[in-house]
């Protein structure tokens, strides 16, 4: 009976490894195509995989050790003596120092990625401030400067507005100013691995770059009320020319007095 239980626990560990192994092919893994689409996102994925390797080796090792001691304990013969030991000082030293070294390595190795993400002096030199993103219950209101102008902290008469659609130029570092009108929200673009809480009373700069010009899903990642699940939006990355062309069109639409089209058709 003991052997059955030892095998039971080993089997459970094997199943977890098997499920993890097939997860990427079942698309229970990083979203859409499995790759990050921003430079910081790629660095995050590299760190994730590094930790995954370290953790997997540790996991397999400890589960094997557990399975081994369970099996031994299940198959011990009545005449065998139990190992009467209160411990081993040298083992304690080894399995204190080795994990500490590994953990400290993981911690220190990542510091510059974190600094790049959040410390302003580590942001890329030329980051274009594209928009101010305001989260509110339950939508995203986005304010862009007019074409050729710089984003100001306060709304300007010729600023452009969209709801739930953040247009950005692809291929270069851009930043948004994240704020909220009411409660806390969080700006989360899974495929770019970008996330930042929007805090009442604060305006937080968030920078990222997008490698491919297409649409990326944007959602809220901090409980903000009953509609937290439906703050569905998108980040629309376009080439610089398309981005500027969009701004022209948007400006024209937004400041249309209703008569220009009629006047043109009358010509």
């Amino acid at each position, binding site marked *: 009976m003991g052997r059955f239980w030892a095998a039971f626990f080993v089997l459970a560990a094997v199943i977890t490894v098997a499920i993890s192994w097939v997860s990427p092919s079942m698309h229970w893994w990083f979203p859409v195509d499995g790759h990050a689409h921003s430079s910081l996102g790629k660095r995050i994925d590299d760190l994730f995989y590094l930790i995954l390797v370290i953790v997997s080796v540790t996991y397999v090792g400890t589960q094997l050790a557990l399975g081994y001691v369970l099996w031994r304990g299940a198959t011990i013969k009545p005449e065998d003596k139990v190992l009467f030991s209160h411990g081993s000082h040298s083992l304690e030293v080894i399995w*204190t120092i080795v994990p500490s070294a590994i953990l400290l390595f993981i911690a220190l190795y990542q510091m510059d990625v974190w600094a790049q993400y959040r410390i302003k002096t580590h942001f890329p030199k030329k980051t274009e401030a594209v928009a101010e993103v305001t989260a509110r219950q339950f939508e995203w209101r986005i304010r862009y400067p007019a074409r050729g102008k710089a984003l100001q902290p306060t709304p300007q008469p010729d600023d452009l507005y969209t709801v739930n659609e953040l247009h950005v130029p692809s291929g270069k570092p851009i930043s948004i100013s994240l704020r909220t009108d009411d409660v806390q929200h969080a700006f989360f673009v899974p495929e770019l691995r970008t996330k930042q809480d929007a805090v009442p*009373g604060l305006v937080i700069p968030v920078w990222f770059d997008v490698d491919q010009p297409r649409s990326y899903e944007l959602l809220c990642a901090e409980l903000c009320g*009953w509609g937290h699940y439906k703050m569905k939006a998108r980040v629309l990355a376009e080439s610089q020319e398309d981005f500027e062309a969009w701004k022209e069109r948007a400006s024209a639409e937004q400041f249309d007095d209703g008569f220009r089209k009629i006047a043109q058709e009358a010509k």
Partner: protein
Amino acid sequence: MSTLHPTLDHAGHAGDDAHGYGHHELTFIQKYVFSTDHKMIGMQFLITTLLMMMVGGALALGVRWQLARPWESMPIFGHLKFATDGGQISPESYTMLFTMHATVMIFLVIIPILAGAFGNFLIPLMIGADDMAFPTLNMLSYWFMWPAILFFSFSLGLGPEWLTGVRGGMDAGTAQGWTSYPLLSALKQAAPGSEMSQTWWLMAVTFIGVSSMMGSVNYMTTIINMRAPGMTLFRMPLTIWSMFITAILQAFALPVLTAAGFMLVADRMLGTCFFIPAGIVVNNAAPTIGGGQTLLWQHLFWFYSHPAVYIMLLPAMGMVSDMLACMCRKPIFGYKPMVYSMAAIAGLGFIVWGHHMFISGMNPALGMTFMVSTMMIALPSAVKTFNWIGTIWGGRLQFNTVMLNCVAFVAMFIIGGLSGIFMAAVPVDIYIHDTYFIVAHFHYVLFGTTLFGVFGAITFWFPKMWGRMMNETVGKIHFVLSFIGFNVTFFPMHMLGVAGMPRRYADPYHFEYLSHLLPLNQVMTLAAMVMGFAQFLLLGNFAYSIFFGPKCGRNPWNANGLEWTAPSPPGHGNFDIAPVCYHGPYEYSSPVSGEKDFLMQTEYVPLAQRVVHVDH
């Protein structure tokens, strides 16, 4: 008094004259309701928390229903509780469900079952005392739980509106997450669940906090002052060490949460603005006057709630150590490292709270410091895991219900602990924060680890509590169903997190990148239902065995602790012979123990027999 009568009524009265008790008859109320006997109080906590566990589980099944069949009418409960929504769980109710699931499980189940039930029952028995240092305070700590339960029910949306002031039933149940972040929880207009129900919730947390505080003071005093002669600190079982360290954690961390709770109540009801910045307009309400900072709440809340998670882990670690040594017939591997590790976990636990706040907008430099301290706290947990494996190594294992639950504890602690390393790494946490990866991690450490340890502890100490054994077959079936159900429910959550599925979403599937995750979630819900209903086996086994279980003597497990010298169940005053402690608690298979493979702490070994050279 020349013969011993080891029954409930007569045992333990040898010391009565010293206490001035005499032979007084207790009324039913004094004996069973407002008892000051630690064993009865422990029992009251145990039964109450087991019932609360079923309530918390039911709330979780509501969450799982919505994730498996979004916007479909829920069977049975749909028409009972959500009739106005056509049987559907509304988005408001969904936010209430996960809020109250976490609240009930944390405040009404895990913390009270570890400290209140097992701490109360075991501490005096294991250190050789006749009761706690403050029996009346002990009784109050149990009864303060009931106002908390009542107020949590009000905050859930139960109860009539004229009584509770909650407008809208469960749709207006408190819905701000158990973390209750302002401004969602500070501004009444921010959500239906942020009106009166949130106030009830805060009052309930205050009551349960006071209950815990009373307990922690009692435990520290008892353990420091009332140990039997010969029981030095380093001869205490690891269960007692864990309860002691946990009590210290409670004492230092709880006041911060209570203060934060008062500040939030003041913001909501007295017009203060501790957490409310200026100019915020929620739902067309008047703009806030402001002057406060929302992040302050997060610091105060997590300053308690991080040590709280160790409060929810350490006692189980201590109890599992005792159970493993007994079931493997071997000493604990590395007793002192185990003590120091628990102390390190507790100490480090006070300086890691910011790891819940990496994305919160706090000063990024803090992210670096909290990353290092969080990585380091993995170390004592790893040391303990290696020591448990070392304890099992070379033993003669008895694969009973107790052992199975303890091995599951170790196996799932490995998973839960290792998944924590991902979120300790701040850049990786940017992605997995507020996704199901986090949910997987804490369920593995709180349920897979602690709760399985509790299942083992219930089975192990049940004979001492009631003088009867629980049914072994039902115990094993309960274990298998719970283990399989638990792992099928929660292991895939790691994958869901990597896939970017956010937490607290009533319907994640309307996002294209998440829509393919529905089948996996449906399997998980089925497994959760199996796991949930399997708990009735535990409750049934528990209730049945109290009356009809096979009777047992004082020490059915051949264990070493002082509690096994007392009668089963112990009478008033616990011990018929005052215990004296001669050695540590883990002398199993000792060469000096003679024919048997255990050496009780109260067993004196003559000098001649003690001189046996052992290599270790």
